[in-house]
């Protein structure tokens, strides 16, 4: 037995923690320290076992194939006819797999997850004992679901995790359930995700209906052998349906509306679930199912367009928001857009790479904002902050590092992964990928503009929060303090990761003629259909000339620097923010459009939500007046349905029906009055029933 043979223990450790905290610690109202220890052990064991299993697997097994561990047979439902002819047994196992993609995911999910558990110890300390254990129970449960999601070896186990993380998201967004907006935000998240999951489920049915299996490795094998056109249609449908699921989970247009509201949850939750891990599940799923997309140019284009447009769309909203967490939320939506843009141009590895680097710097930013909010006594409005760097230097420095990373300044992690994406997008235009070169060029330009906006709004956030003078009043200023070590240590680790993570796992060797220095490309290559080991990097490398690669790097750095400079000029050198204020006055419509997030929520409320409620009310009225009206008004219609109409006189039946009613009413009246009346009423009905039986029998023969 090896660590990776027991890979399923990785999700089970946090599940055990969740159960203990939820059922024992919470119910008995034990102290916070107990809940702490349980939760940290749960996520800590997942971290240790996960890394041990991955490392052991890496050094002992062939890591160009999936190592599948079947735990038990979950659902089995007999043979089903397939669309392609023939039948296949519907057998789904609870099985897990270790392969490069899941290995990368497990490593960063357990690491970031553990750090955020640690951070939560400090952040949540003012909660009551019960709320505290409830919080950690949910957080551990989330780890279980997320690890199930990334380790599952088939679509259905992935879906279990997928729904599980959705549940935990619901519970944690609505953690402060006594506030209506928190409870509503939780529900909104769940429902919007459900809409996406509907697409996912259909994709599962379609996949099984076509291929007779849901196992990734089997699907990969089947699809890698077919290069004809026969499967393109199936791949397109499945790809698009799966992507609908991803749109919901990863908050892309048009289902992104739940993510900004999700900030109602405690900040560590925002960092873990709504930035680093859960929301990237859609990207993971698309990368995992690359074998469908690779066969379907149309599905790829859909992914790229939605991703690219979301990237810039969300970035523009981020420009004007004043709530520190809202800025970060839209930033997350935007960054997820970049990941899908990468997936849509076939750069799945770059997408996963950005998932990992983003997890570090965005978790760092969220936790940093949590530290700020913590210090400001719950205040989230940046207009009431300012000058915090002298009160909380550790938070400031880590936050600044993560901001530089996300802004795309070399050689930090965000630069390396984002530049990889932009280069691939350009390349897709340059090589006229699938004949959609023009579209891909357009998306590349959107991505580039988005990079400038990202740099701008992130530095705007930093300057408004940490520079200048404090604007929150004297009393609040009095309370400003640096956070305890349990909060700053995770910040430091994450900031460190934001610095070196990019070069470490995804060294842009292409720029130095050292393609094989790029670990992640070589490692994950075999999992991507059509890419042959290191070939993927090579194929890309030669499409665009060496000089052009460097020019692209130069361009994206310039763009980022421009964004930073504008932010510096507008928000750092002028404490009154007079330029942006003037801009807002000069272009009131544009400003309001962005400030109100393009009124998308209002639009949905007016159409979908009101429409649904209206339709529901109509159905209810219809039910009460028409369906039940028929019943109440004309009972004989029901009774005398066609069958007996030739034999029976309708009035006789109606008479009998009324008689039944009368007798029964009388019987029950007696029954209520008389202690022993029970038998009488009972007997009367029996006698009547028998009489009716005989009557029917004689009449009908």
């Amino acid at each position, binding site marked *: 037995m090896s660590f990776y043979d027991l890979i399923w223990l990785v999700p089970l450790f946090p599940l055990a923690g969740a159960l203990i905290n939820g059922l024992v610690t919470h119910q008995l109202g034990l102290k916070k320290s107990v809940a702490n220890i349980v939760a940290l052990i749960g996520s800590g064991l997942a971290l240790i076992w996960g890394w041990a299993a991955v490392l052991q697997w890496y050094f002992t097994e062939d890591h160009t194939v999936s190592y599948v561990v079947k735990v038990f047979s979950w659902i*089995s439902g*007999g043979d089903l006819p397939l669309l392609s002819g023939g039948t296949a047994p519907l057998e789904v196992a609870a099985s897990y797999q270790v392969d490069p993609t899941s290995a990368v995911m497990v490593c960063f999910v357990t690491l970031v997850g553990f750090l955020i558990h640690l951070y939560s110890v400090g952040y949540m300390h003012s909660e009551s004992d019960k709320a505290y254990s409830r919080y950690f129970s949910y957080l551990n449960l989330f780890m279980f679901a997320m690890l199930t999601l990334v380790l599952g070896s088939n679509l259905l186990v992935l879906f279990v995790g997928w729904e*599980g993380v959705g549940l935990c998201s619901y519970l944690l967004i*609505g953690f402060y359930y*006594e506030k209506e907006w928190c409870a509503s935000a939780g529900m909104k998240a769940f429902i919007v995700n459900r809409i996406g999951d509907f697409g996912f489920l259909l994709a599962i049915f379609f996949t099984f209906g076509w291929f007779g299996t849901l196992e990734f490795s089997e699907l990969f094998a089947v699809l890698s052998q077919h290069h004809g056109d026969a499967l393109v249609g199936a791949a397109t449908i499945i790809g698009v349906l799966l992507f609908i699921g991803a749109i919901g989970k990863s908050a892309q247009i048009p289902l992104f509306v739940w993510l900004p509201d999700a900030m109602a949850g405690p900040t560590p939750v925002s960092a873990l679930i709504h930035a680093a891990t859960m929301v990237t599940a859609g990207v993971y799923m698309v990368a995992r199912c690359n074998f469908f997309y690779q066969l379907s140019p149309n599905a790829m284009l859909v992914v790229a367009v939605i991703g690219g447009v979301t990237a810039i769309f969300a970035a523009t909203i981020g420009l004007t928001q004043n709530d520190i967490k809202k800025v970060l939320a839209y930033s997350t939506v935007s960054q997820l857009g970049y990941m899908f843009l990468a997936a849509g141009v076939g750069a799945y590895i770059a997408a996963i790479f950005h998932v990992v680097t983003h997890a570090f710097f965005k978790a760092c930013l969220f936790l940093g904002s949590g530290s700020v909010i913590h210090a400001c006594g719950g205040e989230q409005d940046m207009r009431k902050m300012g000058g915090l760097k002298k009160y909380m230097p550790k938070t400031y420095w880590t936050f600044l590092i993560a901001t530089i990373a996300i802004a795309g300044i070399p050689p930090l992690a965000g630069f390396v992964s984002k530049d990889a994406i932009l280069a691939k997008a350009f390349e897709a235009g340059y090589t006229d990928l699938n004949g959609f070169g023009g579209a891909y060029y357009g998306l590349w330009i959107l991505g580039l503009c988005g990079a400038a906006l990202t740099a701008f709004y992130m530095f705007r956030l930093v300057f408004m929060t940490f520079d200048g003078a404090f604007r929150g009043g004297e009393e609040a200023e009095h309370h400003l303090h640096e956070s305890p070590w349990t909060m700053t240590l995770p910040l430091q680790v994450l900031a460190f990761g934001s610095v070196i993570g990019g070069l470490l796992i995804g060294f842009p060797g292409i720029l130095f003629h050292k393609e094989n220095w790029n670990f992640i490309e070589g490692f994950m290559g075999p999992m991507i259909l059509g890419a042959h080991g290191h070939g993927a990097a090579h194929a890309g490398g030669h499409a665009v000339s060496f000089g052009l690669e460097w020019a692209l790097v130069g361009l994206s750095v310039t763009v980022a620097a421009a964004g930073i400079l504008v932010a510096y000029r507008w928000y750092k050198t002028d404490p009154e923010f007079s330029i942006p204020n003037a801009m807002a006055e000069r272009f009131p419509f544009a400003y309001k459009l962005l400030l109100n997030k393009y009124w998308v929520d209002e639009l949905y409320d007016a159409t979908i939500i009101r429409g649904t409620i209206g339709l529901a009310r109509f159905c209810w009225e219809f039910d009460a007046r028409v369906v039940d009206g028929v019943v109440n008004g004309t009972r004989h219609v029901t009774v005398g349905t066609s069958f007996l109409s030739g034999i029976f006189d309708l009035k006789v039946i109606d008479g009998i029906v009324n008689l039944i009613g009368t007798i029964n009413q009388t019987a029950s009246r007696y029954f209520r009055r008389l202690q022993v009346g029970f038998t009488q009423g009972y007997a009367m009905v029996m006698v009547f029933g028998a009489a009716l039986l005989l009557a029917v029998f004689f009449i009908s023969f």
Partner: protein
Amino acid sequence: MFESHLLSLITLAPAVAAIGLGLIPGRYERLVRWLAFGISLGIFFTSLLMWMVFDPSMGGMQMVEKADWIPQFGIEFHLGVDGISLLLVLLTTLLVPVVIAASWTSVRDKVKAFHICLLLLTTGMVGAFLALDVFLFYVFWEFILIPMYFIIGVWGGARRIYAAVKFFIFTMAGSVLMLVAILYTARVHFETTGIWSFDYFVWLETASQIPMGGVWSPQMLVFIAFALAFAIKVPMFPFHTWLPDAHVEAPTGGSIILAGVLLKLGTYGFLRFNRALFPEAWEKAVPVIMVLAVIGIVYGAFVALVQPDIKKLVAYSSVSHLGFVMLGLAAGTISSTQGAILQMVNHGLATGALFLLIGILYERRGTLLIADYGGIATVVPVLTGFFLLVTLASIGLPGLNGFVGEFLILAGSWPVAPAAVVGAGLGVVLGAVTMLWMVQRVFWNPLSHEENRGLRDMNFREVATVLPLVLFIVWIGVFPMTFLAPMEAAVRLLLE
């Protein structure tokens, strides 16, 4: 000896016990409760024994018992169990002690009569699931009506008489038609063979020989008569309006039995009689059933969404859930049928548990209106936890039972009727909206009513009552093979 009469023991013991209970003076209420509880628990354990004796590899009927009853007409006391009825009998015998425990403090009037009704009901339900003589089935089927009628009409809410009569007449209307169809089929059999028989196995051979043609052909009419009786019971759209009234007025125990078991008699009837006896007519009716099922799923979910009354909301969502079962049966693949049967059990467990928990709230607060609650999670955390879990089961969260059933139904129906699956999928989304919105308005949000501040959380008895249901909800969700394996052979046999 014991094993060879196991089925009649499970079927008849409750009725015998009911008679015995009748001999005890009504004022010994505690004794009556404990006796009834003990008896129902004993019956549950006996049915567990049946499960252990049961051979899952066999598709046919097992532990068959047969005795003459009315020999002139070839009517027999004929019982048997296969993988399909096995689960439903287990569900029934599980729910009865749960109902007795749930009614421990909520039923205060005529305690003895209530328990007698409940035990008689048990005989009727178990008998209907086990009967292999069609006439015997009909007798049990009708017999159920009477105690259920009293349970709603006597221990129910304010409009209980209206609801009870509506329930009675609706069901009666269907049953009359079914009776005529049964007698007609028996007569056809008599005319062709010269002997009277209501034997299910005999009918399997002969029922399909009734002349078959268009809608007005005899076989089709017989089929429709059966189908109507069952459609009312399920209830399928548009025969469902008795259900919300019955649920709202019924006492907690009545609602649990109604949702948990009685509705399943309808879906069970479709499978056991319509599907198996008249395969040709079934094929013709499938499109109609499927359309009605999908309408039921979507329509039920829509109507449920805006109900102001918790019980009515759950009742309408039952219409939606039973639509899934009918869809699975209509699609008729092995997967979808297994899913449908499992979903019958799942719905019984989840909705039973929901009504149980709603009853606990009602007992304390005396209202079922959603608007009278809000924010009570802080006051009754244990109840909230259970309610949330059961809600999640009912909206099909993976890892809990509802998902397995829905998945099998939808995956199994997909190759046959993808459009129906897409329609049903809408119901999945709407179902989640309905239930979670209700949970939000009842348990989350600010505590808006001062009188809710003093609500007591669940006590030990109440937790112990709901725990077995929750246990099965999780068990079926994680290890559904325990329950799917025994039914597979039976489903295969029935469908082929």
